């Protein structure tokens, strides 16, 4: 049952790491990480704070673009090039195909994010010569990886029924909404003075909308004054939330894809 998934995932990684557009985005991200210390010196704020914020921002933005570009074309390309027909004529179920493609995308993301994080650590160490701050710094890319895995699942889900262009805007839009507005809806839901109707609406949005903001943990890392309470427990909770949300999206994607005429 899992062998076809692993084979499809491995093939997807092989394809992804050869896609020029992804490599160019990755290269740009790495270049920005390398020049970031130079840019940080231009800021009036604490050099370390700016450097950490800038580097984490570069990794997050680059990873998000890679996650979307990598996944929006995944299923449509297989259909357009007819590779899917040869695969589905073998004893491969559609859910195995979809899950294999997803895990391949996540593995490719992991490789690319690992590369960027390595550059981040190396550049940071070269600039600061302070190895003690590195373990804390790495927490953010780890959480970004869960965030990007969730984003990839959103894009894979949409790719089962919309075109790549529409998917690009849908996934990107959801990512921005889930990153920027999820905390707002959460506050709205929990606030005492919020009217009941608005609370219900906020709860509905909070339930449906993937909460990408959960993984934006850069503030406590950039500003040592801020802290996450029960840090380990928080990381575990948001990771479980992410995994469950991803599972839900893959199940929904399979239901749609199973009925789709390819």
């Amino acid at each position, binding site marked *: 049952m899992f062998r076809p998934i692993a084979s499809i995932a491995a093939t997807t990684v092989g*394809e992804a790491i050869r896609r020029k557009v992804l490599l160019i985005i990755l290269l740009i991200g790495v270049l920005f990480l390398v020049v970031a210390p130079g840019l940080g010196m231009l800021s009036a704020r604490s050099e370390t704070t700016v450097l950490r914020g800038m580097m984490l921002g570069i990794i997050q933005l680059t990873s998000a673009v890679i996650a979307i570009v990598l996944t929006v074309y995944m299923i449509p390309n297989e259909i357009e090039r007819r590779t899917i027909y*040869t695969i589905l004529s073998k*004893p491969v179920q559609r859910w195995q195909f979809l899950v294999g493609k997803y895990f391949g995308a996540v593995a490719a993301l992991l490789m690319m994010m690992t590369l960027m994080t390595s550059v981040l650590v190396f550049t940071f160490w070269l600039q600061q010569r302070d190895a003690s701050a590195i373990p804390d710094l790495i927490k953010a890319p780890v959480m970004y990886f869960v965030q990007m895995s969730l984003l990839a699942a959103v894009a894979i889900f949409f790719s089962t029924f919309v075109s790549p262009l529409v998917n690009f805007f849908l996934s990107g839009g959801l990512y921005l909404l889930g990153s920027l507005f999820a905390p707002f809806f959460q506050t709205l839901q929990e606030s005492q003075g919020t009217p009941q109707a608005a609370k219900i609406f906020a709860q509905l949005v909070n339930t449906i909308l993937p909460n990408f903001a959960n993984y934006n943990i850069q503030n406590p890392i950039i500003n040592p004054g801020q802290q996450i309470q029960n840090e380990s427990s928080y990381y575990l909770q948001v990771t479980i939330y992410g995994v469950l949300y991803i599972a839900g999206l893959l199940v929904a994607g399979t239901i749609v894809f199973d009925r789709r005429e390819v």
Partner: protein
Amino acid sequence: MRPLAAAIETKQLTKTYKSRIHGKINVVDSLDLHVEEGEIFGFLGPNGAGKTTTIKMLLSIIYPDAGEGYVLGKEIGDMSVHRLISYVPERPYYYEHMTGLELLKFYASLFGINDQALFVRLLEKVNLHRDMSKTISQYSKGMQQRVGLAQALLNDPKLMFLDEPTGGLDPIAHREIRDLILSFREEGRTVFISSHELSEVELICDRVAIINKGVIARQGKLTDLLRGGRVEVTFEGVTEQWLKDKGMQDSHVRTIAGGVLLDTTEEEDINSLIDAVRSNSGRIVSIVPRRKRLEDLFIQTVTDAPAQAAKKTITVEGAN
């Protein structure tokens, strides 16, 4: 003798698409198809006739809206049959970063097969063993088609679906693919070929079906469908009138330079006529058979019999 089992059987299989302009369109309409085990079956039709849609339904890539279909005795959609069949799509694309050997490994892994000797043997069979380390992007069209056939043999299939297997290939590649397909029949496999290459089909297929606008217009043994060719015989020493008096059906006689030309059907008793000419001191100058070709039958079927009017399937079956 035990009757041959059906490799493919469809009953009233129908696929409908909705069009904003034309409303519902039956892309495949009440298809009754019968493919026997161990034969090479040609599935012919013009562009848009419903050939690929039919194959996709048989492979459960798309779903029929009505009717039934059975592949190797199992209802279409039964995944267990996918272990016994294989498919090479029209103008196939394979992952270009892989080598020929890696491609076979990938497709084999979908069956849980990991047999290096098998991969090499199959690449030898399709004459790609010297190029197994080249990437697919370095393969020519013909080589890609051959590696496609190799991947289709990984599971030792009983039934192979080949969609336009020789489309866009040069004459040498044509011949290589044709020889491979013939070898599949010798190995006891059933081969279902969708094709436009009528001369190719005529050379290798046992039976054919012609589909037009989603409807099967003709189906049967090639030898039966192509029966009814003509023969041109040129005589000397007999007159035009003498030949006309012989009263042959559906025949034309005319005087040409060097004799009298008789144009008649191959069903007519030419031997008796020749004997009569000889006993009348006449001489046979030439006998030229004008065999009916599949191309003529195809064009006649597609142009003369509009599908809408010919919903009733015309089936020609010879004695087994």
